[in-house]
């Protein structure tokens, strides 16, 4: 499967989903959809989160799996948490801007 692009190659802004397709019946949906926070993370972080869930959220097990020390794995997790917080903050800011623009246009 091809890698899902999350960042615009032209201006580096976050991409949104415009079209969705049902492979079964061919129905297409068009609109502006936000990517979920986890899907917006870099692929490496997504893989890390996936592995972390698979080991029931045990940092010790993750450390064993990756052959790294406990604080190194915990730091990696903290970095992922920070990136998710940053994404959510940016998303909230852009939603607020959109709402302001919409209310400005309606006025």
């Amino acid at each position, binding site marked *: 499967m091809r890698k899902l692009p999350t960042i615009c190659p032209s201006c580096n802004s976050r991409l949104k989903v415009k079209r969705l397709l049902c492979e079964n019946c061919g129905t297409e949906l068009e609109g502006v959809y936000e990517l979920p926070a986890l899907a917006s993370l870099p692929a490496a972080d997504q893989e*890390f989160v996936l592995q972390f869930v698979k080991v029931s959220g045990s940092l010790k097990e993750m450390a064993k799996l990756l*052959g790294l020390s406990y604080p190194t794995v915990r730091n990696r997790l903290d970095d992922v948490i920070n990136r998710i917080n940053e994404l959510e903050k940016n998303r909230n800011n852009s939603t607020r801007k959109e709402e302001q623009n919409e209310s400005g246009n309606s006025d």
Partner: protein
Amino acid sequence: MNQEIAIDKGAGKLQLGQWMFNPFQFIAGGKALFMGVVFILVTSILGSISNTHFDGVLDVHSGLAAPAWFFVAEGLIDWLSLAVVLALFGLLLRQLSFRMIDIFGTQALARWPHIITAIVALTPGYQRYSVYIANKVLKTGPAVTIYDTDILFFALGIIVLLCMAIWMVVLMYKAYSVSCNLKGAKAIFSFIAGLIIAEILSKLGIWWLFTTYVKPT
């Protein structure tokens, strides 16, 4: 499998550079604490043989005879001074919690280059010349006969000693950075401040121990 995870797994294998300058990516917690304390004890025992004192977080001095327990106490004071100060800085600066065993363990392990210093201090040429200098400066002890090559051994020893001290500081910083997940200017400046405070604390502690129990004044 994802590429970065594959790289992480590869990092688990022996990579000399990472093992030399940031072994804490792979070792921390109880294992690092055990290894570090063993290294500190071995360093202290070697130091007691050659009368090499690790009398401060970064200090190495030769000369004065003292009971073996004092050399062990010096090593423990050096380690604990820095670990306690950096743990406090970590608590102040870090947003999320960290394990105390990681900072104490990795700081103990970071002192391992001192074993090499202690071994270098055991070489006869280095030992003779350092005793010669100590006796001359302190104006005590019997006259020591030195050989022409002793100064060469001493000079080489000093170079090794400096390299080990630099290496140890790098390891101490990495240990702090990994244990508390601190990076950038915040990590560097707090580490430097911690090192200075710990150096003063360790000097005071060792001086108190020396004047109270070893050589009362």
